[in-house]
């Protein structure tokens, strides 16, 4: 790639400014002693102290992360197998039909998915709480994982599999040593997308939470009437910093791990 022209650089800087400005604005006011976001009165750490003294809020944050990680993990496993299943479906019309069913789930509004889950759970008699939230998050993440993994599978040449079979690989070997390593980037992309979807989701989660189990998005939405406090700013700032740390950590880890993997590719 050639060097960026000056105007392109300015444009890029502008886009990043727009993307990050609200976050920094929010973090800035998390240090405000004034109590609201309208004027900055002075520096204080009291909102951070409030986050750590509010056990209920911390439990909600931890629950949110648990649900996100678990649901992303499980839906990735199911979604990858589903995508492989779709690609190897012999009947062309059948394949198209399954794929369309998958896509319908992606475009259908969250509110409808949430309401249907609520009706289903109460009909079957499942108590609302951790399990119901986890199940519904897994359900709405699977189609996303499928969509992320599918292009990688389609781009893979079928002669790779034929060659492996000719060399005497069993079906299991083909799956674990040929297909999965090849689609690995898609798997990770699917996992991270499912993770963010789960962290973000309000509409579905609202319907299926219960018995004291709640996630951060539901908690913040319900503050809308009486006013969102700066505690939430402080919490968001903390989450932003932790995320930033994770991304930087992942980057360094990847840089270091890359060299041996690339030279010793047969280790896969």
């Amino acid at each position: 790639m050639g060097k960026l022209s000056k105007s392109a650089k300015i444009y890029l800087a502008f886009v990043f400014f727009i993307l990050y400005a609200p976050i920094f604005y929010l973090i800035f006011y998390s240090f405000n002693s004034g109590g609201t976001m309208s004027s900055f009165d002075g520096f204080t750490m009291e909102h951070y102290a409030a986050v750590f003294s509010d056990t209920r809020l911390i439990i909600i944050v931890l629950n949110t992360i648990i649900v996100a990680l678990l649901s992303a993990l499980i839906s990735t496993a199911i979604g990858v197998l589903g995508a492989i299943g779709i690609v190897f479906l012999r009947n062309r019309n059948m394949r198209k039909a399954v794929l369309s069913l998958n896509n319908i789930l992606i475009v259908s509004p969250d509110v409808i998915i949430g309401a249907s889950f609520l009706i289903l759970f109460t009909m079957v008699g499942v108590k609302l709480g951790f399990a119901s939230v986890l199940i519904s998050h897994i359900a709405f993440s699977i189609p996303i994982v499928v969509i992320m993994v599918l292009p990688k599978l389609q781009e893979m040449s079928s002669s790779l599999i034929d060659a492996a079979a000719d060399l005497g690989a069993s079906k299991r070997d083909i799956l674990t040593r040929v297909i999965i390593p090849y689609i690995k980037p898609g798997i990770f992309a699917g996992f991270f997308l499912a993770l963010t979807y789960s962290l973000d989701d309000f509409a579905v989660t609202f319907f299926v939470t219960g018995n004291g189990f709640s996630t951060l998005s539901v908690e913040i939405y319900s503050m809308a009437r009486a006013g969102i406090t700066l505690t939430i700013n402080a919490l968001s700032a903390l989450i932003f910093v932790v995320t930033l740390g994770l991304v930087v950590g992942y980057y360094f880890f990847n840089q270091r791990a890359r060299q041996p993997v690339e030279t010793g590719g047969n280790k896969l």
Partner: protein
Amino acid sequence: MKEIIRASIAILIVVALLFYAVSFLEKSSATSSDGGSITVFNWGEYIDPEVIAQFEEETNIKVVYETFDSNEAMMTKIEQGGTSYDVAMPSEYAIEKMKENDLLRPVDLEKIPNLTNIDPYFLDLPFDPGNEYSIPYFWGTVGIAYNPSLLDGQTFESWNDLWDPSLKEEVIIVDGAREAIGMGLNSLGYSLNSTNLSELREATDKLKTLGPNIKAVIGDEIVEMMRREEAAIALTWSGQAADMMFVNENIDFSIPEEGSNLWFDNMVIPKTTDNPEGAHEFINFMLDAEVAAQNTNYVGYSTPNKAATELMDSEIVEDERFYPPEELRERLEVYKNLGPEMLGVYNELFLEFKMDMKK
């Protein structure tokens, strides 16, 4: 493949650690709960967390606390079941609807001796005669928030003051059909719960003549706009006005003399309750004078608890803008549930008024 397995194991370990942290936190925050537990369903930021801790300590009943963001969402969840809510805090019109749909359990007033703390004015209201199903929690009014520093000495004793030609593009109206049409009805001296079509037509026509003075018809952004002095006048709820005044001392609030709306949030016991004893105990506890005073100081809305107001800062409870005197309160009206058809009429007239403004 190895990398994927390794990543999965790492995630599972993190999840296990988080689970451990959650159970540890829950254990350390929970008091011995031999009195069972109750699930309370309330608006966000609408209770002092200290009060809950105090209740748990005193009664040994554990409180599972959940929040909602609208009456409608709350009703859906209660109607569907799945969680056994023991106490909820809906607004008055929602209580009427919940009664109709048979979602509520009658409150046993004998188990709530602290009811005597409540100002009788707030009991036995049209949405729940005899307080069979509900106990008042917080209340407020609809009125005019205004910023005198941006105006030349106008005051707002009457709704008709808003029609002053000098207020061109200064008035913000809250985006609610009943609030806006209600203002039209009040300014003509009619009831807020009018179902008389010719009265409603008259009110809408009068509202249309306010057009040139209107800057915007919006929702929660009003608070921010008034704080930043982008607008001088707003038709809004007393709670929102209190929020504005908390930050911008220039702002004042008045309830026009023709009368206005009085709104309520109340504690009810849904039919789904598992622990009606605990629910009654909780409601009674919230009505305790000291508890109610502490909770009111935290939440900032007006309390119906007379005994509590005696314990509170006199500057707050003597503020007639938020605790209007009796002669004004007599002119305040609580919304009645007008039924879906009449509500449709209100919404249509409100839409007509909004469309007329575009000209």
